[in-house]
């Protein structure tokens, strides 16, 4: 089956005279590709929202009773249920939930009775900072490190470096981020007071949290980049680039890097999701008032509206990140623009 379709794909190969003017077909394939990706994003976000909506239904106990406290008389509970529309059929509640979520009304915290949006507003900055810094750090470290090591160890060169790299990244990837975070605090903030130990006071208070997330994820991604480097370096067009006697930098950076990034992003892009959730654990260790600390607190105290909102936000971030990666892949690899259709 695949063989035949592959053959079909090669069809324009038959001869120069039968080449189709591909440029003539101005239906921009990548526009359709992007639309398709956006559709997928919308469906994914719909799924996440639906699941979080259902979460409340799955959970035993009455959220209103939790919210109003034990002293509230039954009549008040009933009244509040009506206010919140909880007495409505599930489907009505579902659409109502959608309406609220889309207008940014995430409901009130069961614990503080304050709008969840206030909590999010106060905390999203710190989380966004950590996530953004970690994403950048992970990408830069992983791509540069993986590329350099990949070149240096290509085809069995420098076996010691290769072994050391495998071992070091293996260990770094296997170390859970919470251990790394604690270790970093102990080392850099308590033993040598170089960085602040906690809080989100200044720019330097984000150094250790970023480091804690980056270490593991960069190690994992660096391995992916190294092996993609090895694959890319084995490609015929790199041999051709060398056969053209281009300088090494041009061979690697101009011919290697874009293709390498495609390969690395395809595989390593998934890793970026864990960077986003890494913030949950790390914020807790560094006591940074962010969405991660709020999520864990809310989980323990069963503050479901908060759990719901933060999960949707983090999941949405990951999904949008993936869309961006997809788009970047499309930009890097001209082939994908056509193949997507």
């Amino acid at each position, binding site marked *: *089956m*695949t*063989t035949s379709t592959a053959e079909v794909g*090669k069809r*324009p*190969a*038959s*001869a*120069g005279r039968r*080449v189709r003017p591909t*440029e003539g077909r101005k239906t921009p394939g990548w526009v359709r590709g992007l639309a398709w990706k956006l559709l997928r994003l919308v*469906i*994914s976000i719909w*799924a996440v929202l639906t*699941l*979080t909506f259902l*979460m409340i239904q799955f959970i035993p106990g009455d959220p209103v009773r939790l919210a109003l406290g034990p002293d509230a008389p039954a009549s008040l509970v009933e009244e509040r249920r009506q206010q919140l529309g909880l007495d409505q059929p599930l489907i009505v509640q579902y659409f109502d939930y959608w309406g609220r979520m889309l207008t940014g009304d995430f409901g009130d915290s069961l614990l503080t009775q304050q709008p969840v949006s206030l909590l999010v507003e106060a905390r999203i900055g710190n989380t966004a900072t950590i996530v953004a810094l970690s994403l950048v750090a992970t990408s830069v470290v992983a791509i540069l490190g993986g590329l350099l090591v990949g070149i240096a160890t*290509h*085809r*069995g*060169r420098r076996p010691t470096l290769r072994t050391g790299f495998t071992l070091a990244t*293996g*260990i770094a*990837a*296997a*170390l*859970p981020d*919470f*251990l790394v975070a604690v270790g970093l605090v*102990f080392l850099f903030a*308590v033993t040598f007071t170089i960085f602040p130990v906690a809080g989100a006071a200044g720019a330097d208070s984000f150094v250790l949290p970023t480091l804690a997330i980056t270490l593991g994820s960069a190690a994992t991604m660096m391995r992916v980049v190294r092996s993609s480097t090895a694959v890319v370096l084995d490609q*015929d*067009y790199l041999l*051709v680039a060398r*056969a*053209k*006697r281009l*300088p090494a930098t*041009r061979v690697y950076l*101009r*011919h290697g890097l*874009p*293709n390498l990034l495609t390969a690395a992003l395809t595989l390593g892009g998934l890793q970026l999701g*864990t960077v986003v*959730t890494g913030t*949950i*654990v790390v914020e*807790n260790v560094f006591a940074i008032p962010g969405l991660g600390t709020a*999520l864990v607190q809310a989980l*323990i105290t069963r503050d479901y509206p908060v*759990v719901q909102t933060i*999960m949707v936000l*983090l*999941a949405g971030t*990951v*999904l949008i990140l993936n869309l961006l990666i997809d788009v970047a892949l499309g930009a890097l*690899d*001209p*082939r994908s623009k*056509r193949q997507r259709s």
Partner: protein
Amino acid sequence: MRRQLRTVFSTVTGSVAAVLLLLLVLLAIFGPIIWSGKANAIDVAKAWQPPSGEHWFGTDELGRDMFARSLVATRLSLLSAVAASGIAIVVGVPVGLLAAMFGPRLTSAFQSVVNVSIAFPALLTAMFVGTVIGIGVPGAILGVGIAMAPMFARLTQTLTASVISLDYVAAARTMGVPLRRLVGRHVLANVAEPLVITATTSVGTSLLGISALSFLGLGARPPQYDWGGLLSTGLKAIYTSPMAAIGPGTLIALSGIVFSLLGEVIAGAFGDNQSNRRFGRVARAMAAAARRLSAKPASPSDALLDVANLRVGFPSENGELPAVRGVSLRVAAGERVGIVGESGSGKSVSVMAIAQLVEHPAVVTADRLRFLGTELSTMAPAARRRFLGTNLAMVFQNPMSSLNPAMRIGTQLAEVAQVHSGLSASDARTRAADRLAEVGIADAGHRLRQYPHEFSGGMRQRAMIAMGLMETPRLIIADEPTTALDVTVQRQILDLLLAINRDAGAAILLISHDISVIANVCERVVVMYAGVVVEDLPVASLLRAAAHPYTRALIASVPDMTTDRDADLATIPGRPPALDDLPTGCPFASRCAFATDECVAQMPPLAPMADGHLAACWHPQGGAL
């Protein structure tokens, strides 16, 4: 597989991983039996003691021995991890299998779902499931298991998809093999290896995931305790009694490392095996560094290319494998020379070595390697780069993969002139357009802006040739330039090469397994077998005077439009010798009808025949074929 595992575990990393795994398993089995008493013995007076001879990791808030507790916790930690992985496999593998087996539509729907869920952070999924189930060990296990299931689903789906597209599955289907057997015998058996590897590493991943949940207070709760829970207990005293946290932390990290190491080791075993398999068709793909060309005083020569005693070896476990064993070759200016030989004969490696493109770990030596009168081996790298860049052009076998898919054709052509002639971007583009037009590509200006995937195979090979013509090469090395092309396109490309030879005077060194292709293009043909040149003769003499039995068999075994359809084709019995088992004598002796003891004993030199052409044979044959 068993044998591979055995060899793997005999390596240092492998045995370390195996021993550690064994230790963990023993701990999980016997730990609670031996240390439970000590682990649960409460003595509040001894709360939070620092590490001592009695309490290696110190004590916790109830004065319980943290070391004993860490050991006892091994069982719960490992069991949870294994259970979570088990859930992931039980859920993921069948889903992946189904998605791959039943139609492209299901597959594509499945891929969308899985791609999203796999990108969805596992920790969030685990938290979500844990919230619904309720905080505790079962919630954590189920959460982590479900979070990992998409990974297994996708892996299974991709692996299965790649296996069922293989011909042996199609063959089994045409044999009417029942579905159950098809899945078990043909699909699962062949996707098992990577699944086993992933399952191994996934235990480590689950362990970390569940530990993280316990650490955050979303996993095991008292009186149950796993490593994550102990870690968060110990963390309370990290600054006063760090061992209470470092102890369980180390165990978590160690187990994580053991399982990832184990996966790597197993993967390494299978991977090596694969690369060994590939080693058979190394030739062109082989590359690498370390050139130590022994430069001997060059004999004056007016040849364009003058190679003497070229040797290329590839290091392997069984010593160096000699892919090329003393090849000498001369190409005169403007000459068209072909090298013919079957796979593994060393023809591609030879020209790659000549072009200075063989990389580590291959080792290249030659008595003489002169091009345009200059010894290449002693040139400074930068000078050599420029020299070869302007005078030598190469065309490779697969035009589909030879062009960089991420760069426009124009850029790939123009950069040659920019780098070597220092042309400006616009001048280089003008030249590129000229060259494209020269190789017969219409609308060159427009074509320059296109990407390789917008070109047909024949056009890509033309573009490759045009790229070689960006400077004024004196020699074009074309390595199987038409093998991947259809016969009508092959004709056009060969004609193009001939035209360039005629119009630009560039010499051509054409490598092919198809002797008739060479006969159509070249003036002289060099026949290679098992890393040596066995015959070197003018194309005109091929049918009249080929002397070496191998050359003659090669010609006779290929049917052409005049072959007698009622007679069997000539065949060559046996197989070419393996590189690690080369005979001392003539490598063709074991397959040769004319071989004598002399042939087995001694390698015949490349010597002039009656008509003056060269052949390496003790018993050269005569007469027309």
